[in-house]
C-alpha cells in the first residue's frame, strides 16, 4: 500500500476547494446569516414567535398544501412524462413545450391569472362554486397554484429516465407472459421510483417557499389561508427581521427534514432494487 493515497484524477484538492468555497458563499453563508439573525432573539422569545397560533396555522397551510400539490403531481407528472415519451399524437411537441410554461411565466402573472380563472366570477370558479367547491381565497386555491408551479419538476425528472429505459426489460417481461399492466406496475414503475421521488422532493421544496403565485389566490386570511412565506414578508414589512428569520428557520428545518427523508427513501429503494437484481 502506498503511504499517500493518490487520486486517479489530478487537481482534486483545487476543484474540491473551489467547489466548497462556492457552496459556502452561495448556500452556507446566507443560511448562517439566517441562524445568526434569529439568534438575536432569546430562546424564550424565539419559541414564542415560532409557536404562535398564527404561525402554526401558517405552517399547516404551507406544508399541507405543498404536500397535497406534490401528491397531485406525483400522479400526473409521471403520467404526462409517460404519454410524452411513449405515445405519438398530434400536438405532442406542443404539449412537451407547454410543460415548461410554469417556469417561463413570472409567478405573479401565474397567480393573477389563476385567481381570475378560479374566482367566483371566473370561468372555472363559477362552475366549481355552483357545485359547492370554492377554490380562490381558500387552501384549495393555494394547492392549485402550487400544482401549477411545481408540475415541471416531476415531468422533467421522470422524462429522461423513461427515454433511456432499455426496451429489453419490458420485452423480457412480455415474453415471460406478463400482461402490459403487470409490466408497467412491476417493471417500469420500480425503475422510475428514484426519479419520481427526487422530482417530488424538488417540487415540494419549491412549493414550500413559493410566494408570488400563491399570494393572489390565497386570500391571505390569517389562521385559514395564510402561507408561512407571507408571514415572513409581513414581519419584514414591520422591520421585524429577527421574527422573520425565526419563521424562516422553521420552514428551512421542515424542508430539510423532508428532503433528508426523501433521499433516505430513495437510497433504500435503489439498494433494494440492486439487491433484488443481484
Amino acid at each position, binding site marked *: 500500500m502506498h503511504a499517500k493515497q493518490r487520486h486517479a484524477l489530478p487537481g482534486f484538492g483545487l476543484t474540491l476547494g473551489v467547489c466548497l468555497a462556492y457552496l459556502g458563499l452561495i448556500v452556507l453563508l446566507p443560511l448562517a446569516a439566517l441562524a445568526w439573525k434569529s439568534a438575536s432573539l432569546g430562546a424564550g422569545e424565539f419559541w414564542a414567535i415560532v409557536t404562535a397560533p398564527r404561525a402554526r396555522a401558517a405552517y399547516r397551510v404551507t406544508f399541507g398544501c405543498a404536500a397535497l400539490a406534490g401528491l397531485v403531481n406525483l400522479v*400526473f407528472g409521471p*403520467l*404526462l412524462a*409517460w*404519454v410524452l415519451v*411513449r*405515445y405519438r*399524437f398530434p400536438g405532442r411537441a406542443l*404539449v412537451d413545450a*407547454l*410543460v415548461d*410554461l*410554469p417556469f417561463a*411565466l413570472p409567478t405573479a*402573472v*401565474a397567480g*393573477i*391569472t*389563476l385567481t*381570475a*380563472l378560479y374566482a367566483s366570477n371566473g370561468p*372555472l370558479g363559477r362552475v366549481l362554486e355552483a357545485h359547492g367547491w370554492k377554490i380562490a381565497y381558500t387552501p384549495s386555491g393555494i394547492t392549485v397554484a402550487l*400544482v*401549477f408551479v411545481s*408540475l415541471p419538476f416531476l415531468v422533467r425528472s421522470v422524462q429522461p429516465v423513461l427515454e433511456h429505459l432499455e*426496451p429489453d426489460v*419490458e*420485452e423480457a*417481461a*412480455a*415474453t415471460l407472459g406478463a400482461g*402490459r*399492466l403487470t409490466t*408497467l406496475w412491476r417493471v417500469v414503475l420500480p425503475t422510475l421510483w428514484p426519479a419520481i421521488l427526487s422530482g417530488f422532493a424538488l417540487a415540494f421544496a419549491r412549493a414550500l417557499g413559493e410566494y408570488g403565485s400563491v399570494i393572489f389566490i390565497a386570500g391571505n386570511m390569517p389562521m385559514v389561508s395564510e402561507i408561512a412565506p407571507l408571514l415572513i414578508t409581513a414581519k419584514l414589512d414591520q422591520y421585524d427581521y429577527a421574527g422573520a428569520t425565526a419563521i424562516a428557520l422553521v420552514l428551512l428545518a421542515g424542508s430539510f427534514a423532508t428532503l433528508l427523508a426523501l433521499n433516505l427513501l430513495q437510497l433504500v429503494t435503489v439498494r433494494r432494487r440492486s439487491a433484488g437484481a443481484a
Partner: protein
Amino acid sequence: MNAVRLPSSALRDPWWLRAPLLLLALAFVALFLVLPLFAVFGYAFEKGLDFYLASLVD
C-alpha cells in the same frame, strides 16, 4: 428486415390503456397549462390591442 425500425409490439400499450392515459394527461394539461396560458392572453388583450400597446409604451 424492415428498414424502418418499428417499436416492438411489447412496448406498445394496448388501446384500452393508451386511450384513457392519453385522455387523462391531455385533460390535465388543458386544465392546468393551456387554460391559464390562454387566460393570460385573454386578460392582456381584454381592453383591445390599442390599450395593450399603450400600456407597453407607458
